[in-house]
């Protein structure tokens, strides 16, 4: 069970703005899904190590060399930014001006 306040709290953490209607819908959906996945809590996993990911490789190393990426490519990345000033990405202020 997840209540509406919890849904609002998670939405805030994940930077989603929800209408009251969406809060209601997600509260129902998530409750149902959490109830289903909650079945795992009944499994005895004493002494079972948690899986750490998809690969069995450990400590993959490479030489610490500078790459060959060219300026054109980094320029393309900067060009994607919705708001820019010269080659800098521009954002709105973090704090509201009083």
């Amino acid at each position: 069970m997840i209540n509406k306040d919890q849904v609002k709290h998670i939405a805030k953490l994940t930077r989603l703005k929800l209408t009251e209607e969406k809060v209601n819908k997600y509260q129902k959906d998530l409750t149902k899904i959490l109830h289903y996945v909650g079945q795992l809590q009944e499994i005895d996993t004493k002494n079972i190590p948690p899986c750490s990911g998809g690969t069995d490789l450990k400590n993959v190393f490479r030489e610490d060399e500078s790459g060959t990426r060219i300026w054109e490519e980094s320029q393309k990345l900067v060009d994607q930014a919705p708001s820019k000033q010269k080659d800098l990405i521009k954002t709105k202020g973090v704090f509201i001006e009083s």
Partner: protein
Amino acid sequence: MKLNKLTITQAHHRLKKKEFSVKELTKDCLNEIKKQDSKINAFITVFEKQAIKQAEEIDKRIRVQGVDNLLTGIPLGIKDNILIKDTICTGGSQILKNYQASYDATVIKKLRQQGVVFLGKTNLDEFAMGSSTENSGFGPTKNPHNLEHVPGGSSGGSAAALAGQMCLGALGSDTGGSIRQPASFCGIVGIKPSYGRVSRYGLMAMASSLDQIGSLGSCVDDAAILLQAIEGKDSLDSTSKQSDYPIKIPELKSLKNFKIGLPKEYFIQGLDLEIKELIDKVIKKLQGQGVEFVEVSLPNTKHALACYYIIMPAEVSANLARYDGIKYGLSSAQGKDLLDVYLNSRSQGFGEEAQRRIMLGAYTLSAGYYDAYYLQAQKVRTLIKQDFERVWQQNIDCLLTPTTPTPAWKIGEKINDPLSMYLADVYTVSVNLAGLPGISLPAGKVNDLPVGCQLIGNHFQENKILQVAKTIEKAVFVGLTKNG
């Protein structure tokens, strides 16, 4: 015969004999897209002009070098979560509708070297999250076998493009069944390789410990040819691995001394009876070929889906944090401060399923719930892996199961009940959790809709499942694939 109907192998031989040009082949595919895709919606972007230009260049290259690779001149569809340099890549999401890829994914680089033609980018559930392609930000894809039904998902666009004969092969990605399930629903062959066989560099990350790029083909050989072209270790993806068992195009050989396991947990209630009958038919025919079948048990199968729907959303919530309206993609200028930009951009840009999974993941990872959900799921994942390891110790060559419990459902039927949609992945998710290879190939039809059977192999044992798949194609379900 129109050239878009050919298999990759057929087209290859005829290109070699100079019976037609790459441009003619490409044009037939583009014409088919024009004719059909307004109804099917398999493509988000079609590279009409670029594909012709690319075809002309490859024709030129052929005049100098000849048809030097199996894929030279072959027109393909690419799932729209794989980057092709200087083209739009949406991930099926409105949040990236204008995003231009600045580099090629490693698989694209490899295909380019082979001289393929990229026809366009295929539709998918938003960021590959879904089992029906209805969650796309660009409208649902329809199943070419019956336009009222879903093509499966999330690689539904790739599967439908191929089943609709709009391309000769396609790439997809599979996190919990996203290649195998649509291959099953659309009557084609789809391979999800072992985790690490194919580089994920340039694939939009959904759940990084589960994602793999794989191939879709209209016969077993075609899917194998494509996989062979894209496999290999890549320094840009440190989870990729050089395999001691490189992909071979399977030859029809005796399966005497082959031992195939039938996991009993895959044949219980919930499985459509007609699908079960089709699987029984495969078993009987393969027994006639000398294959020994043994019942095996994967006791944690019943927990696999719950385990998957904790681990996957947890990774999704982390991976999708990057879409913030600042660096690229949709950005809402409304609001007064930075927080408003985040909130507005993400709420407008992400569809419902993406939002649901982001929140679900954030919840199961948060303090107070982490141990009960995420940590417990990672322990269950270990149990699921151990189930398979025990089976391989019994000298089992591979497992045979249904790919899906039912044929394709009607568009809209499950969209309002996410949990019922998730259950469609019940036979495919364990393979991703354990990092194993799986293939789905046509097993027949139920109510005139295709259904597939699935072969699961041990780590990097794709060649074994390809071998069995080839026999099934040639000796059991003759005529169901283009090569059968």
